[in-house]
């Protein structure tokens, strides 16, 4: 087979008409040089540069820099060379094999991308990030919490008297924790409380106004301590960090639109992460109360009360700071007319916290299983601190 093509010698861009002869393991290229002398270049097929991505280009390159170049005239001739050397490496690549599947390959790749991404989002990053968070030394965790606390508290007024009573109240509860828990009460009408990594709890005086008895306050603190024990804030941050790293490395060649979609799905999944942590803190906190011989009914009535509190601006700020705000991010009023419509289910998907009814239900289920033979009691000194906290 003799094929006509163009040859470039790598020294100048001059395109020279040439004739190709195909030998067993090489291609012989005959062309005329500038002085019209006959020249031959022989290409060993093993040294033809690899075509990792086959396109409509019919160009082959050869050897070491500066490369010799061949341009074939027709697609048929180019294909004929490939067929002539089926086992030669220059036209073999995993992408070229994939390309041969045509539309089937494209559909399979699209489905796999979606499937693998979903797997990563739902299982991969949480496992990875939780491992990371757990392996972080407690000392470091405490310093992260300290930074948060300093940053956040500089905008708020601390009530030092109530802070002292709150700490004393907490100490008497004797909740199990590996962390030294330190509580701050800040002056604000906002109904909120949150836990920071490493042992700090911030309680707004607004939530104290709504709390009516010792058990409810004990329930609130049990919930917050469980966040700290479970390292929830840190796990949330490292999940976001892992997601950020994953997305940063993936979005490089994804178009702008897809990047926005991925960004939003990240937000939604991170909301549901924290919902998972909220439930965990409810259930673990419940157990802490029972262990300390406190009536967990307090936690149930607290959540029943707070279920009707609507989202506040500050809560949104807290959410943006990714602090673990606890109770009041309920964007749908469960006592309103809307509650008969399955809005609540929809709200649960998007809210960081279990929808109030759902939350009350699982806690009430747990309440039924509590061994009532153990008497619950509230000591006098606990009551004393509680009264001081309620006093204006």
């Amino acid at each position, binding site marked *: 087979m003799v094929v006509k093509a163009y040859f470039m010698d790598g*020294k*100048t861009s*001059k395109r020279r008409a040439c004739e190709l002869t195909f030998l067993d393991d090489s291609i012989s290229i005959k062309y005329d040089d500038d002085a019209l002398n006959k020249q031959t270049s022989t290409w060993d097929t093993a040294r033809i540069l690899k075509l990792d991505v086959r*396109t*409509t280009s019919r160009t082959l390159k050869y050897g070491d820099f500066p490369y010799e170049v061949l341009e074939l*005239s027709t697609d048929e001739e180019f294909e004929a060379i490939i067929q002539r050397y089926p086992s030669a490496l220059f036209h073999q690549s995993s992408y070229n094999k994939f390309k041969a599947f045509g539309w089937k390959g494209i559909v399979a790749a699209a489905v796999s991308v979606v499937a693998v991404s979903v797997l990563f989002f739902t299982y991969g990053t949480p496992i990875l990030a939780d491992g990371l968070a757990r392996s972080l030394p407690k000392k470091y965790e405490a310093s992260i919490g300290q930074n948060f606390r*300093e940053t956040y508290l500089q905008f708020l007024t601390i009530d030092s008297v109530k802070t002292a009573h709150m700490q004393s109240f907490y100490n008497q509860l004797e909740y199990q924790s590996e962390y030294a828990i330190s509580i701050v009460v800040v002056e604000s009408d906002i109904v909120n409380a949150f836990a920071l990594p490493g042992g700090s709890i911030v309680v707004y005086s607004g939530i104290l106004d709504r709390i009516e008895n010792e058990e409810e306050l004990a329930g609130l603190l049990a919930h917050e301590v469980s966040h700290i024990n479970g390292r929830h804030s840190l796990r949330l941050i490292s999940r976001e960090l892992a997601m*950020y790293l994953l997305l940063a490395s993936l979005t490089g*060649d994804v178009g702008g639109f897809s990047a926005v979609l991925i960004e939003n799905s990240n937000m939604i999944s991170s909301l549901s992460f924290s919902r998972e942590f909220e439930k965990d803190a409810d259930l673990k906190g419940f157990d802490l109360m029972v262990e300390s011989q406190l009536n967990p009914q307090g936690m149930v009535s607290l959540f029943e009360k707070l279920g009707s509190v609507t989202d506040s601006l500050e809560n949104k700020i807290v959410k943006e700071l990714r602090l673990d705000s606890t109770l009041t991010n309920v964007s749908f009023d469960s006592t309103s007319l809307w509650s008969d419509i399955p809005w609540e289910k929809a709200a649960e998907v998007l809210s960081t916290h279990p929808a109030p009814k759902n939350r009350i239900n699982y806690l009430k289920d747990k309440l039924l299983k509590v061994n009532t033979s153990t008497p619950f009691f509230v000591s006098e000194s606990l009551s004393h601190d509680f009264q001081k906290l309620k006093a204006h």
Partner: protein
Amino acid sequence: MEKENIPPVKLNSLNEANPPVPGSTNKSAIDEPSKPDHKFTFHGSYTQYLGLSLYNLLLTVVTLGLYYPWAKCAIRNFLMQETEVDGSRFEWHGTGKEMFKGFIKAYLIFGTLLLTIQFGPMFLPPSLVLWVIFGAYLLLIAFIPLAIHGMMRYRLSRTSLRGIHFGYRGVLKDFYKKTSLDFLWTIISFGIYSSWLQVNLRKYVLKHSKYGNVSAKFTASGGDLFGLTIVQSLLIMITLYIYIPWAIIKFFKFYVEHTIIIQEEKEYQLKTDASGGAYFWVLIKAGFLTIVTLGIAGPIANLMVHKYFTESMSLSGGFNFDSIQQTETAYNDATGDDMADILDLDF
């Protein structure tokens, strides 16, 4: 479009007489009406590009991002090989392995800086946060010339046409000397001076870019770009942003038409016939396609835009693609290229 009809040198002209001997008969001025312009054409198939993008994305996801340099390399292979001028295709010689090494180095440098900026406020004491973030931003800016320098050296050295390699001969020290004041003025003037910065960067980079024994220059001034920016910004505001595609084309024309290619001391104009109206329709089509396919056809949309810009370009007809001498050497450090990628710099 007319591109299918006029490949400047037809491959089936094999039996015709050889093209003129290099540099012998050529008496070209900047525009030589007797010779048709060399149009750039783009042959890439949308379907293949979609498949290649999905294939890349899948491998990138499965390898937790490590495949990215190979993906980028494959995309460049595709885009270069499908771009034709004067009957020949561009070639990309970079390899995934080279780009991976650069990627790791660039990520170690920028990953640290970007993570500091993104997550610093969470982990650092409040008294330090401002200083550390300010320092990180300053370092990011200081790396820009290095990234541009490395990107140009790698990218041009790894690109060829007809076996002749492009190249970049800028000297990093000179580049810093020439541009550091411009960066400083840009920061002090809150970005107003950036027109001059951009033009000066481009002047330096083009002056030191080579295609064999062919060189280039950029002829606009910072004042030209500043004037253009003012007028276009006003038009964008007056038209409530509808004018954006027209403005983008104005800037594209500005950069293309002030680029002069110099061959054997004769100057040739780089041209574009892009228009705001045509570009607007490309964007409408691309956007519509992206939306109805929920983003899956995003790569096709990107390629539509790429094709539009590529095919709008041409080079004055007098330029002789047959007489270029190989002058550049091989260069394989891709760090700057990956740095530029992270910083989203493009030339």
